[in-house]
């Protein structure tokens, strides 16, 4: 049993309307000093075996075909510490 984290973020050149709306709201809520907010997704994937290279490759494939939309999103795969 191991936990693999897949972080999915919009590509930098893609409009992040949601992140922008949050960033615009912050000063009104009394938070200053934030220059930008980007919002993405985080997936915690529990795999049955160990998080070896083969398993990570499998998760990467999963991220590429299902968890992320690679037309507009980038992803990173890491093993939970």
């Amino acid at each position, binding site marked *: 049993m191991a936990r693999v984290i897949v972080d999915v973020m919009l590509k930098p050149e893609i409009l992040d309307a*949601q992140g922008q*709306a949050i960033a615009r709201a912050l000063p*009104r809520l009394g938070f200053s000093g934030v220059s930008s907010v980007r919002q993405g997704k985080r997936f915690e994937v529990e795999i049955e075996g160990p998080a070896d290279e083969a398993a990570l490759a499998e998760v990467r494939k999963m991220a590429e075909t299902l968890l992320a939309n690679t037309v507009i999103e980038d992803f990173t795969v890491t093993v939970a510490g």
Partner: protein
Amino acid sequence: MSAARVGVVTFPGTLDDQDAARAVRHAGGEAVPLWHADPDLKGVDAVFLPGGFSYGDYLRCGAISRFAPLMEELIPAARAGLPVLGTCNGFQILCEAHLLPGALMRNASLHYICRDQGVVVENTATPWTADFTEGQRIVLPIKHGEGRYVADEATLAALEANGQVVFRYVGNPNGSLNDIAGIRNEAGNIVGLMPHPEHAVEDLTGAPSTDGRGFFTSILKKLVNA
């Protein structure tokens, strides 16, 4: 006697404010537009938080609206007993503002759903539901992507024990716990629900019933008699 004044709040991205105001007028009340950025309740007798996608539903539905200047006025007034009704996004805002317990999450189907929905009125001890009878089955439109009501077990048990479940779905459309379609606070003055009574007040337009009228006749009677 002047008509009872019901405030209808518009946030950026609110959609059903015009419908809500119309429903208030149809029932004989005066609809008072309230703007999110004005911290002024204009002396209204009750407040309607209509549906929509305030702030685009970004972050979480209702999460950003909750901090509007108007809410800074509304939250203490509601706690002090001002009748408040939130439908759909309005319900989500009330939960985010902690005026009502629990939260509304993505529908279990993961799809937005628009349909005519059977609902049972479970509690009539609120200023918004007095004209219904307990156990009455009504039909109202629902239209939401995030209407699945959740709360922890203790909260749910308390809601049930105190009669705070005001509406239950007939045939759960979104996976809400205990089939909950709407709830009230303990005092009963604040009610939130996912279905849209303001879309069900006229024979001509869309909805298959005029069951929504009961909400508006309830509150107006209450205000006029107050």
